[in-house]
């Protein structure tokens, strides 16, 4: 699969490395070039510098031919906007946006966006582990 990952933070890096290792064609976008160092020397994918809400940057990352787009920057609003551009402007088949804010996540889920709320997932897991 050709997969674009927006945001080279902890989640973005981990996701990019594991997908690359499994043989997927991965492109990572981040505003800050320094972040790409985290991907390590073994990373075989592509890196594009720029903001993920810019159509030209997304095109440079090959969004027109992408099978999946994942927005995992540390900004909920950036993720929501970038994912909507991927879904509605470029018609990418699989789009996922990570959000920290549960309320915003719920709203965008209702709007038809595939969303993951790491806050709720983490909290639910912790509840399960403490048996409460």
């Amino acid at each position: 699969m050709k997969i674009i990952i927006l945001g080279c933070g902890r989640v973005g890096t981990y996701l990019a490395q594991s997908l690359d290792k499994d043989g997927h064609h991965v492109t990572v976008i981040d505003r800050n070039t320094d972040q790409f160092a985290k991907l390590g020397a073994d990373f075989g994918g592509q890196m594009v510098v720029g903001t993920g809400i810019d159509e030209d940057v997304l095109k440079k990352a090959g969004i027109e031919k992408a099978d999946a787009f994942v927005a995992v920057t540390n900004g909920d609003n950036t993720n929501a906007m970038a994912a909507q551009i991927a879904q509605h402007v470029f018609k990418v088949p699989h789009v996922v946006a990570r959000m920290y804010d549960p309320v915003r996540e719920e709203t965008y889920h209702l709007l038809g966006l595939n969303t993951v709320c790491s806050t709720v997932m983490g909290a639910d897991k912790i509840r399960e582990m403490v048996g409460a």
Partner: protein
Amino acid sequence: MYIIIVGGGKVGYYLTKHLLSAGNEVVVIEKNPKKVDLIMNDLGGVAILGDGSDAGPMAEAGMNRADIVVAATGDDEDNLIVCQMAKKKFGVKRTIARINNPKNEHIFSVLGIDSTVSYVDALVAQIEREIPAHSLIHLLTLRDVGASFIEKQVPQDSPIIGISMNDLSLPEQFLIALVIREGQAIIPKGTTKLLGGDEVVAVTAVDQENVLDRLFRGELIRRR
């Protein structure tokens, strides 16, 4: 009217001031405490400290009874999310978004935010109007209905000079609405003839803006 403004920077501040003096009820949501203090000191208790794309401060501001929400921050992604949250979560009928990067106007439109204000576009239009070049000027675009008001000067060497309107073969969806000659507005009739240097204002379908160029090149003169 009850108007909520998200973003209390320079744009939000002066917008609030203006709307308050016009007798509206206004609340500003701003995340920088210094800016909130400034607004509270200068304009009264009309500011709420918080993230205006966050449901908490939105509810606190009474978003569900707002007539209009204006997203006026310097970040387009925040402005988009403010408008979408206001519409989808709080049922606000009218939202207006400030657009900082002109490229985003198209994206906002695709994503259902139809009412946008782009400073850069407004500035460019103003500059175009001030430059006495022969370029096409966009006076107004009615995107919802796909129409544009455009303006262009008739070149001094145009074959169209001296030809009357009756002798033109203009396409459907195109109208010469106004001719500006030496500072005077002329509503053209069938007998009106264009002269070099005339400013021609046309109403046209958005995809037919090149018709003025063809007209000035003499391609639309009716053959006899």
